[in-house]
């Protein structure tokens, strides 16, 4: 017959077994909860990254550099804050054994049984006379706190957010792909330009517009270009503030990033070959190696080209007055363009006559009365291939309801039985009807 101490030891070991079963189940609940917390943190972080990336990519295509830079900075900051919050939320969701017990109690209506068992278990002295009863009672309800019953979900709901953001990213990626294809197509349409450096006019332009130009040319032409840009740069340096320079750098940085994201970098660059027609250089040693002008020059040149579009530059810009900016090639414009430009170029021509005199062929033409009459000049060689990029937007548009209606073309065969037109034979009109017929004709 077992002694009292043996019986007590047996009861204690059975109690420990029951406690072990309960605790193991609570551990399973905790594991499940923590897995969900981890998933939530991961999915939320990924959602934020994917969503922000998609919006930034979209902004790279749609916005101008400075706006893009602002949007990217704001979104980047928001992403950082969002990531920190998502990680914190996820870590707060992490469950200890006690927390898992509390959650299981709340979700299964165990009324604090698990919380009590888990919190009292390490403290043997806190167990009273009713401890075995509590264990037995809790164990008898073990099906109630099965992990699948406490937390039926295996995958966090935050995956829906990730899917939504992924969908958005796919749409943006599709849009980006279409845009790139369009750029590749337009790249083929860009022809290389050749321009006399003497005809290059430097003027300030909206720096946000247009894309860069890759300039090459013989050494003397490039030297002249450098001189022009240096002069323009000095003039600009006097008038530019530190804020302006900072803005310029920010713009360049944003433009570079945008180019990398959108693939504009080499796709849509114009290749401009400069020549020097002043005769000092015959071109035998003209280096074909691409040359990058001083900082800002590249963009300015290109922007000049773009803004040469009709209505693109106001007269004050065209006047130049030593103000830096872009270079305007204008040797062989159509007569009306030249006329329009020269109206605003007259004061400039006086100020920069020494440089312009060498080119000569384009100066004073158009509305200059002296050139209206006289012998026709031969256009300079190489001008046939010159193209002006025109960026045109509809300025005004009437309401849709007012737009003219174009009827569809309908091709219908004639009726084969139709008789040729013949005068209708005069016939007698009854007296009663005469008044009516007369009234109809009078009307």
């Amino acid at each position, binding site marked *: 017959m077992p002694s009292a101490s043996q019986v007590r030891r047996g009861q204690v070991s059975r109690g420990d077994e029951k406690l072990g079963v309960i605790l193991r189940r609570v551990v399973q609940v905790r594991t499940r909860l923590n897995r969900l917390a981890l998933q939530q943190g991961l999915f939320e972080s990924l959602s934020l990254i994917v969503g922000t990336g998609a919006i930034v990519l979209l902004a790279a295509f749609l916005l101008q550099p400075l706006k893009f830079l602002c949007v990217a900075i704001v979104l980047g900051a928001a992403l950082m804050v969002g990531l920190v919050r998502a990680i914190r939320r996820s870590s707060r969701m992490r469950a200890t054994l*006690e927390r898992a017990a*509390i959650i299981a*109690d709340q979700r*299964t*209506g*165990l*009324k*604090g*049984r698990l*919380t*009590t*068992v888990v*919190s*009292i278990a390490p403290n043997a002295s*806190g*167990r*009273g*006379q*009713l*401890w075995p*009863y*509590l264990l*037995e*009672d809790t164990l*008898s*309800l073990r099906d*109630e706190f099965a992990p699948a019953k406490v937390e039926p979900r295996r995958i966090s709901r935050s995956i829906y957010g990730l899917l939504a953001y992924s969908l958005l990213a796919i749409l943006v990626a599709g849009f980006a792909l279409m845009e790139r294809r369009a750029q590749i197509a337009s790249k083929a349409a860009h022809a290389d330009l050749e321009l006399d450096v003497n005809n290059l006019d430097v003027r300030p332009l909206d720096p946000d517009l247009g894309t860069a130009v890759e300039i090459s040319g013989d050494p003397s032409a490039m030297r002249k270009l450098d001189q022009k840009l240096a002069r323009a740069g000095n003039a600009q340096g006097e008038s530019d503030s530190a804020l302006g320079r900072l803005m310029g750098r920010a713009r360049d940085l944003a433009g570079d990033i945008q180019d990398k994201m959108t693939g504009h970098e080499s796709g849509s660059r114009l290749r401009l070959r400069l020549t020097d027609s002043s005769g000092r250089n015959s071109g035998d040693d003209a280096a074909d190696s691409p040359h990058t002008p001083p900082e800002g020059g590249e963009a300015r040149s290109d922007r000049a080209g773009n803004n040469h579009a009709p209505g693109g530059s106001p007269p004050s810009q065209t006047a130049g007055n030593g103000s830096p900016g872009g270079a305007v090639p204008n040797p062989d414009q159509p007569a009306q363009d030249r006329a329009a430009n020269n109206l605003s170029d007259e004061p400039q021509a006086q100020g920069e006559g020494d440089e312009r005199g060498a080119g000569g062929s384009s100066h004073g033409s158009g509305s200059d009365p002296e050139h209206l009459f006289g012998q026709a000049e031969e256009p300079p060689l190489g001008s046939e291939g010159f193209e002006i990029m025109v960026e045109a937007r509809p300025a005004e548009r009437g309401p849709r309801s007012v737009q003219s209606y174009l009827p569809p073309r309908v091709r219908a065969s004639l009726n084969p039985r139709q008789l040729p037109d013949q005068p209708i034979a005069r016939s007698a009109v009854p007296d009663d009807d005469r008044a009516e017929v007369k009234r109809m004709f009078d009307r």
Partner: protein
Amino acid sequence: MSAAAAFELPGVADLVRTFRRVQTEIHKAIIGNERAVEELLIALFAGGHVLIEGVPGTGKTTLVKAMGHALNLSFNRIQFTVDLMPADITGTRVIVSGDDGRREFAFQPGPVFCHILLGDEINRATPKTQSALLEAMAELQVTVGGVTYPIRPPYFAMATLNPIEMEGTYPLPEAQLDRFMFKVSLDYPDESELTRIISTTTGAESDAIAPVFTGDEAAARIEALKRLVREVIVAPAVEQFVARLVRATQPSSAAFMGGRKGPVQNDAVDRYVAFGSSPRGAQALILGAKVVALLDGRANVSLDDVERIAPCALTHRIMLNYAAHSDGIEANHIIQGVIKSVRAARG
């Protein structure tokens, strides 16, 4: 969803059975007011005393008498009046003749020496007389003439208050109020209950209340059940919840808090409460919740048990200020708000 216990310990089952039987017997005399009767019995098994409040004729005295009969314990009733003296309650030393003819002082126990004491309309006696009950309620002893006389447990004091007749009354001091574990309100009966009251009390015969215990075992059984109640396990999280709850009843401006604000603040408490619950309130909450847990077949206290007990355990411990009286705010509203705040802070 509530998970029912599938395992029964003999002591737990005995308490539940006894509780229900006493409840049934009391309801032979008291129609309706089930919650009040249950709270009364919870206080009995938790080892506390009860203040019963109700308008005249709602069965306050009948309830206490029915309880005494059902438990088969010694029962005394004191009608508190303005001229009642402390010695009328505690007892006094009187001159008695011995067998040998010698005369000597002997202690004549007062009505306080019993198991169940009913102090009817306690607020009609002077504070001095009211205070005569303090020692008996708190320490189960009475000191007369420098000699301390113990009271045999179980000792259960119930006092009734009439809330509408305030003239010539002496409101109970806070110290005395705090010694009552619960304050139970007897509501006016509704129409159907009133009909049943009429039919059962005006007939030729009425149901006799049968004692649940025999006279010899009553005291011992009740004491054993009270010890079992003390064995109920309370998780630290529940103790912390109770501590927060009681602290949250104190306004943050209370001078005796020493400027230490609790983790839970409630605007209504700051605005309407002059003094909150004492630590005795926390003890009452835990002990009452233990009985509720056992009645539910559990050996552990849950937060729901505490919330079930909170209104009757804290109502009389919260002293409202004039703003509350003028705005018609009751202590019960404050307690519900505090429970909500503490629950929210717990997460």
